[in-house]
């Protein structure tokens, strides 16, 4: 269930942080890819900041709070903060012996580009999961067919369970299909998606304690039973 159109109606609530987890993850994914919604979101947030400033309580922070914040970080590095582009830039700024053949530089750049794309996708995938505030998250394991695939099943306290998935667009005539794995064993169809990249797939079959979840590639109309080996699977949730 990827969001294709601009989520104009829900963007104000998204800026306010008032959406439920499924809606929140879908819109976060859209905003990540949409310049127009990014700009609109910034305008809503700026208005909120001004409203917050007149609503915040005027109270003195503890005197040594600033010092504690600074001392905690002095001498350390913001390890998780530097973007992949900044890391590449830093790397390229280092002195390199002139004797290194140009072809190695090209190979290096291509490698960085691939790693960078993966990192970017990983970041977006992690951000989508970071929006989960009140649910249980179980990661699915990629199988040998697609080791870069990622997915997690989110079981919120309220509402339907759903998958946050990172997979490429399925081949023409095919679809990604989710399954709830019951003891028996039985695979119950639980929804399909033709989306690619990072997307949300709401599970249409109930999921019980100890059930597993899997994703397979199926014909475009979906299947009643899996016809291919799973690309991602969790034996138990």
């Amino acid at each position, binding site marked *: 269930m990827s969001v294709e159109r601009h989520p104009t109606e829900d963007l104000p*609530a998204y800026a306010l942080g*008032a959406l439920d987890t499924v809606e929140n993850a879908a819109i976060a994914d859209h905003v990540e890819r949409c310049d127009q919604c990014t700009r609109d*979101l910034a305008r809503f947030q*700026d208005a909120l900041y001004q409203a*917050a400033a007149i*609503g915040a309580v005027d109270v003195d922070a503890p005197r040594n*709070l600033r010092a504690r914040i600074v001392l905690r970080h002095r001498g350390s590095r913001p390890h998780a903060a530097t973007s992949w582009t*900044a890391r590449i830039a830093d790397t390229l700024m280092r002195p390199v012996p002139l004797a290194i053949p140009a072809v190695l530089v090209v190979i290096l750049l291509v490698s960085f580009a691939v790693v960078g794309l993966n990192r970017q996708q990983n970041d977006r995938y992690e951000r989508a999961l970071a929006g989960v505030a009140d649910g249980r998250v179980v990661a699915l394991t990629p199988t040998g067919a697609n080791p870069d695939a990622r997915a997690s099943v989110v079981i919120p306290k309220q509402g339907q369970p759903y998958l946050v998935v990172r997979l490429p667009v399925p081949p023409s005539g095919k679809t990604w299909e989710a399954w709830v794995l019951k003891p028996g064993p039985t695979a119950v169809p639980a929804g399909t998606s033709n989306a690619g990249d990072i997307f949300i797939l709401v599970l249409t079959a109930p999921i019980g304690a100890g059930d597993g979840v899997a994703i397979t590639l199926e014909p475009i109309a979906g299947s009643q039973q899996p016809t291919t080996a799973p690309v991602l699977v969790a034996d138990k949730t």
Partner: protein
Amino acid sequence: MRSAVVVPDKADDVRLVERIAHGDAEALGELYDRYGRVAFGVLYRMLPGPETAEEVAQDAFHAVWRQAGSYRTERGSVRTWLLAICRHAAIDWRRTRGKRVEREVTIDAAAELVSDARVDERVLTALRAERVRAVVRELPDEQRQVLALAFWGGYSQSEIAARTDTPLGTVKSRVRLAMNKLRERLEEES
């Protein structure tokens, strides 16, 4: 600092965040000097007591330290980015560690958007603060209430609907109308 009217330059804010991304802890202190008061004031209002606000403020600035490298100017100003980090940190705290009784107290406190004891003139010019207050006052009561519950209470639209015994569609409509009006009127005023 307390009596100063702080109107930081946006480009200067961005340079601060760039320094933080390169591991400059003093820049983090300078960011605190600019926005620590409003950040602490927001956390103080959202959380049950000063000790908690202090703990979450440290977590929030640690998040700033870790995320500075991923800040993008096109996604909004530094101050709104920092405010979003603080709110998320407060909501996370309440959902993971906050006791239910503490949260119920905060619902009452969240019922009004504008506080009596304001921090506004420390972070907005006095004239601007008065205009913002006027725009907020123009909102109908029911719209102001849903904004306050969502912003200060950290409640989702469906939680607000359940707690105020209002249809979810009505709550969504009020949030949308209020946010659009707030944005439009504040942009007209600026």
